[in-house]
């Protein structure tokens, strides 16, 4: 569905991504993980056209996204940033209505069909009872669902989520991820997310892409790539891997390092400092 081809980007001369290529498969959930500052968000910025790649191209169904008409692209792909803003007095329903923008003519009137889709998006995200409340009065989890409802009203085939669970408590994190999972399973929505929680990534993803040091470190199905070596190499933690029989995915718990709680890599960097 989405093909990233030899992408290189950076900020003020500093390389963040160096010649990376990967593919996003249709109807799958793909999660991008990696340590802070590895370039995960930069990848999403490139995909959302917020930052133009220095080299390389991004092909959506074999068309360069920078050459597709903005509104046409908005009907295929929707992107939710980390903590989007909204004026205080906009209701959740107003917000969902804006999801219909790419379908509007210059008069900007909502048709019966638009209202039906807005209602549908509100039902799917279970915010019926909240729809007339101001978005600013909603809890973090409710707000995230309202934003996802807006993205749904765009009727996209591809949904990009930048850390959709950040700032949410565990119950709401779970709620949002279950919703994303349902959108994928029931509506065949292709999803690309950036997640911090690796156990959540392992549980909800069909494919994980690990980014480290400007490169794709590894990619594959969670059970193929989540292992002790990867977590030690990429995230600098020692872990023990278990198998979640119910959800058929790996999970891990960090373990204390025998030599006093810090990993070998970190110890090395300490020694360098002193």
């Amino acid at each position: 569905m989405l093909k990233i081809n030899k992408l290189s980007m950076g900020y003020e001369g500093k390389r963040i991504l160096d010649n990376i290529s990967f593919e996003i498969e249709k109807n799958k959930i793909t999660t991008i993980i990696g340590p802070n500052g590895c370039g995960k968000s930069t990848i999403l910025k490139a995909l959302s056209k917020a930052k133009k790649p220095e080299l390389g191209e991004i092909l959506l169904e074999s068309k360069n996204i920078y050459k597709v008409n903005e509104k046409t692209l908005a009907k295929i792909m929707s992107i939710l940033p980390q903590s989007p803003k909204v004026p205080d007095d906009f209701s959740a329903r107003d917000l969902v209505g804006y999801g219909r923008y790419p379908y509007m003519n210059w008069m900007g009137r909502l048709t019966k069909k638009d209202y039906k889709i807005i209602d549908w998006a509100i039902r799917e995200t279970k915010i019926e009872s909240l729809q007339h409340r101001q978005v600013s009065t909603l809890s973090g989890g409710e707000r995230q669902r309202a934003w996802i409802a807006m993205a749904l009203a765009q009727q996209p085939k591809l949904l990009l989520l930048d850390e959709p669970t950040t700032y949410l408590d565990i119950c709401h994190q779970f709620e949002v991820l279950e919703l994303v999972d349902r959108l994928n399973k029931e509506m065949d929505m292709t999803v690309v997310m950036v997640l911090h929680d690796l156990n959540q990534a392992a549980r909800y993803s069909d494919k994980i892409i690990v980014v480290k040091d400007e490169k794709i470190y590894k990619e594959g199905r969670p059970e193929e790539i989540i292992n002790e070596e990867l977590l030690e190499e990429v995230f600098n933690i020692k872990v023990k891997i278990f198998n979640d029989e119910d959800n058929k995915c790996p999970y891990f718990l960090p373990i204390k390092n025998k030599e006093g709680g810090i990993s070998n890599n970190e110890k090395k960097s300490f020694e360098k400092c002193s």
Partner: protein
Amino acid sequence: MSTVESLEALKKKHSYKITVIIIFGLAAIAAFLISSSIGALKISIADVLRAIFIEKEGLNRNIIWKIRVPRTLVAGAVGICLSLSGGILQGVMRNPLASPNIIGVSSGAGLAATITLVLLPSYDYLLTPAAFIGAFSTTLIIYFLSWKDGIKPLRMVLSGIAISSFIGAIINTILIFFPDRVQNTLGFTVGSLAARTWSHFNLLWPYALIGFIFTMIMSRKLNILMLGDEIARSLGLKIERTRMILIICASLLAASAVSIVGMLGFVGLIVPHIARIIIGSDYRYLFPASALLGASIIMICDTIARTIVEPIELPVGIIMAGIGAPFFLYLLRGGFKKNAKNK
């Protein structure tokens, strides 16, 4: 909740906002009539109406039709222009403090207008285009000065203030060297409506009308811009182009007002805020509400300005600042935390 129910709730909200706009419209008409009736010679509102619609000559007709009506219409049009300009800038900059004055649009228009008055005093009709070019280029300079990975609101306001005072210095220098070329300098620097007639109104309304129509067409796009660049982009809005068009709009509106009445302050800042508190931040309603409210406020302020210390006439800008400055302080004291948090 069913579709029917939610549609009803929507209609209720819509009709509330339409009612507010109609009330503002009636307020504007009332302000127009009051402003026409009060003056050195008190004329009753019934006589005002008779003078406008029925009489073809006579003392009342002369006073009302030749002096008060055009002046009041200029006041109204200026109110519309400056309020819309301020509303646009507050949205585009996502900053509750943005206004044609603080952002430097007014001073840019003022400089260009001053230069035109000094160099080409006989070409009246060049005034508005020149003021427009001045306003627009100042906006662009400030825009690019504050650009670094996107617009930082604080940087924009600060560079606006710096550029404004710099241009203010140039204007004052010109005014010192050519005092005779620019009549009523004080009126120009604070904004005055004294002796404004039909010729001024005819110069002003085409710009105001074009600006108003454009603003209404752009209102939905501005709403989407309020959701942040990332969301706006995801919804398929051409952000940079939309922003540019809106800034051109705001400059045009401010420039046409400044070229006629001088650098009238505070209207563009406070009117959109008051309107937003009453009607909400949906620009489809906010624009017409601010336009009508702005028109009413300037008409009333001008009435006060020319009658409060009769027979001396104060520039309307002094009355406006007298009301505007305390309100601005109220906003700074935290009033805008409630109303403009997410900008």
